[in-house]
C-alpha cells in the first residue's frame, strides 16, 4: 500500500493532473470568501458587459478631490477613442477623392490624420460619385471632430428647488481623479453574462456545482457498476446471465438517449442539480459493470477465494475482503473517468436545454447554454463562453491525466 502510494506520487502525469484539480477545487472553496454574495445576483442591467474596471460616474463627478495632470497626448487619445474606425475610413475615402496620395494617409497616426483633415476638408466641395449616405457620414464626422477638439469645460448642473438648473461644478479637460478614492468601483475580470451577472463569480460557483454533479454521478455509477460487476462475475450462472443481458442492452442503447428521455420527462421545474447528477449516474454504470465482471471472473477461482469459501465466509465478506482489493486500483480509475464523463454529460444535456433549472444554481453547462442562446459567440462576447470551454477542458484534462498516470503505475507494461 505504502509502496503503491509512493509510486503514484512519483508519477508526474498523476501529480500534474492531481494538482490541477486540487487548484480548481480550492478556488471554488476560497473565492467566495473574498467575494461574498450570491453568484446569481443580476448586477448589470443589460447583456454581456466587457471585462474591465467599472467606476461609478456619479461618484467620479461628485468627488471633491481632483488632480490636475498635464499630459501632452491626452487630447489625441481622447479623439482617437471617440473616432471609430469606420469614421476614419470615411475620412480616408474623402481625402482620396480630394486627390491626396494614398501613402500620405496614415489611419494609425491620429494626429497626422487630423492635421491633414483640417488643412484639406472643405464642406462646400461635392464629389459626384459619392453617395449621399457617405457624404452625410463625412459631415457628421467633421462635426464630431470639431466638438472633440474644442477644449470646452463641462458644467455639472444641479437642479435647484424651483426646477431651474444651477451651475454646480466645472470639469476641465486635464482634471483627474484617483480610482482608489472613489467609493464605488467594481472590477469585473470577466465582464457579465447575458443576465448581467458577474461572470467570474458565477463561473467559479458553477465549477463547484459541476464538480459536485460529477462526483455524485460518478459515485452512483461506480457503486452500481461495482455491485453488479462483483455479483455477476463472482456468482456466475443465472445471475450472471441476467445482469449481463441488462448490461449489454444498455451498452447498445445509447445512454445519451436515455438521459434525454428521462430528463425531459422529469420536467424543467423538478430538475435540480442533484436530480440531474443522479440521472446521469443511473445511466452510466454500464462500463464499470463490464470491466469489473471481466476481472472478477478471472479472480473467482483463485486459491484464497476458494479457501475463504470453504471457511464458510459470507458472500459479502468474500467479495469485500478477498476480491475487492485486487480490483480496487481499477475501480478508482473507473471512478475518476466517471466523474469526468458525468461533468461532460451535464454540460451536453444543458446545451440541449435539459440541464438543471436556471434559477437555483449555475452549472458550467447552463452558463454555456445561455451564452449560446444569446449568441455570445456571434457578438464577440468571448468572455461569456471561452473561459467555460477552457475550464471544462481543464477539468477533463486533469482527470484524464490522473487516470493515465495511475494506469502507468498499475500496468507496468505501459510505463515509459
Amino acid at each position: 500500500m505504502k509502496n503503491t502510494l509512493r509510486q503514484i506520487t512519483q508519477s508526474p502525469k498523476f501529480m500534474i493532473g492531481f494538482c490541477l484539480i486540487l487548484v480548481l477545487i480550492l478556488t471554488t472553496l476560497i473565492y467566495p470568501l473574498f467575494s461574498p454574495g450570491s453568484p446569481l445576483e443580476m448586477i448589470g442591467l443589460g447583456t454581456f458587459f466587457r471585462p474591465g474596471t467599472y467606476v461609478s460616474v456619479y461618484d467620479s463627478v461628485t468627488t471633491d478631490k481632483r488632480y490636475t495632470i498635464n499630459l501632452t497626448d491626452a487630447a489625441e487619445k481622447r479623439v482617437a477613442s471617440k473616432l471609430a474606425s469606420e469614421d476614419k475610413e470615411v475620412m480616408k475615402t474623402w481625402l482620396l477623392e480630394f486627390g491626396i496620395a494614398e501613402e500620405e494617409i496614415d489611419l494609425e497616426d491620429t494626429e497626422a490624420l487630423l492635421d491633414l483633415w483640417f488643412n484639406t476638408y472643405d464642406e462646400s466641395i461635392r464629389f459626384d460619385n459619392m453617395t449621399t449616405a457617405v457624404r452625410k457620414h463625412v459631415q457628421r464626422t467633421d462635426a464630431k471632430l470639431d466638438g472633440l477638439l474644442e477644449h470646452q469645460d463641462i458644467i455639472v448642473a444641479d437642479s435647484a428647488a424651483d426646477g431651474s438648473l444651477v451651475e454646480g461644478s466645472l470639469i476641465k479637460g486635464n482634471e483627474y481623479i484617483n480610482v482608489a478614492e472613489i467609493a464605488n468601483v467594481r472590477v469585473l475580470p470577466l465582464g457579465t453574462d447575458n443576465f448581467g451577472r458577474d461572470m467570474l463569480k458565477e463561473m467559479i460557483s458553477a465549477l463547484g456545482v459541476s464538480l459536485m454533479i460529477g462526483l455524485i454521478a460518478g459515485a452512483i455509477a461506480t457503486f452500481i457498476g461495482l455491485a453488479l460487476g462483483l455479483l455477476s462475475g463472482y456468482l456466475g450462472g443465472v445471475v450472471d446471465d441476467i445482469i449481463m443481458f441488462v448490461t449489454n442492452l444498455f451498452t447498445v442503447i445509447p445512454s445519451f438517449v436515455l438521459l434525454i428521455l428521462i430528463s425531459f420527462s422529469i420536467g424543467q421545474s423538478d430538475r435540480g442539480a442533484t436530480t440531474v447528477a443522479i440521472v446521469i449516474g443511473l445511466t452510466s454504470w454500464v462500463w464499470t459493470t463490464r470491466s469489473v465482471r471481466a476481472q472478477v471472473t478471472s479472480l473467482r477461482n483463485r486459491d484464497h477465494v476458494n479457501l475463504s469459501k470453504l471457511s464458510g465466509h459470507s458472500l459479502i465478506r468474500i467479495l469485500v475482503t478477498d476480491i475487492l482489493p485486487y480490483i480496487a486500483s481499477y475501480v478508482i480509475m473507473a471512478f475518476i473517468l466517471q466523474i469526468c464523463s458525468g461533468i461532460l454529460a451535464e454540460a451536453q444535456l444543458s446545451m440541449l436545454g435539459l440541464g438543471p433549472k436556471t434559477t437555483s444554481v449555475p452549472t458550467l453547462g447552463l452558463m454555456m447554454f445561455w451564452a449560446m442562446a444569446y449568441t455570445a459567440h456571434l457578438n464577440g462576447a468571448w468572455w461569456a463562453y471561452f473561459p467555460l470551454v477552457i475550464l471544462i477542458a481543464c477539468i477533463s484534462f486533469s482527470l484524464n491525466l490522473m487516470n493515465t498516470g495511475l494506469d502507468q503505475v498499475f500496468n507496468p507494461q505501459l510505463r515509459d
Partner: protein
Amino acid sequence: MKGYKKYFGKKALWFFITLVCAVILNFILPRLMPGDPVAAITARIAGGMTSATAAQQIYQEYAEKFGTNQPMIVQFFTYIKNLLRGDLGLSFTQYPRPVSDILKSSVIWTVCLQLPAILTGWIIGNVLGALAAYIRKGFDKVLLPLSLLISGLPAFGLAIILLVVFGVNLKIAPISGGYAQNLIPSFTPTFIKSVIGHYWLPFFSIVIIAIGGQAIGMRSMSIYELNSDYVKYSRFLGIKDRKIVGYVFRNAMLPQITGLALSIGTMIGGALVAEVIFNYPGLGSTILRGITGSDYPMISGSTLIITLMVLAASFIIDIVYGFIDPRVKAAQIE
C-alpha cells in the same frame, strides 16, 4: 459458411431483442414519470382561455387523440402498430406536420455529417496512436498530452472555438446552417457548393474529437502488443520490423473495432450537440427545437431514430468484426 450463418444469426437475434427493449423503453420511460403530459400540453394551449369547460374539452380531445385515456397495454400496441407503419405522431410545434416527415429531412443531414466524420476520425486516430506506440520518444511525448487535451474537450467546445475562429473572425466559413439561407434544397450546383461550404467546419469539429479519443486507446493497445512475447520472439527470429509492425497493428486493431462499436453511441451524442452549435439541420437541432417547444412526439421520435442508428452501426461493426477476427474465422472453417 455454416459457422458464419450461426454467428450472424445469433448477432441478428440479439440486436432484435435489443431493439424491442429500446422501443419498450422509449414508450415506457416518459409514461413512468409523474405528471400528466397531456395536461401539460393542454395547459399550454388553453393558457389564454377563461372558460373551464373549453379547456376540459381540449383536454378530452387530446387525450382521445393520443389515446392516454386507454389502458397502458392498449396504448403500447397502438404505438407499435403506428410505429410499424412509420407513423410517429404529429408534431406539436409544427402542427399538423407528421414527426416522421420532419425526421426524414433531418436524419439525412446527421448521417451524412457524422458517418464520414466518425470514420475519418477513427482511422486517423488509430494510425496516429499506432505511430505513437511504435516511435515513442518525442512524437509520443507530444501526441499523448495533446490527445488527452483534445479528447477531454467537449465536442461543443471545439465546435464553438472552430466556429469563432474560422467563421466569425477569419470569415472563411459560414457560421450557421447546413446550406445558405436563400436556397431551396435541390440538386443544383449552387446548392451542392453551398452544402459543401457549410459542411467542413462541423465535420472537422467531430473528426478532431474522435482522433483524440481513438489515438489514446490505440496507443495503449499497441504498446501492450509491442511488449508481448510473440513480438520479442519475432525479433529474435530476425523478422523485419515492418512485418512485425503489421502483425501488431492487426492485433491491436481488433479491440479498437469493438471499442468503436461500444463508443459509437457516446460519439453520436456528443456530435449531436456540436450540430446544435452550428445550427446544422440535423437531428441535434431537431431535438433542441423539440425540447424548447415541449414537443413530445418529436423528442421521442428523434431518440428512437438515434437508437436505431446506433443499433444499426453496432450491428454492422459486429458483422465486419466477424469477418476480420481470426477466432470467428476459425470457427467458420471447422
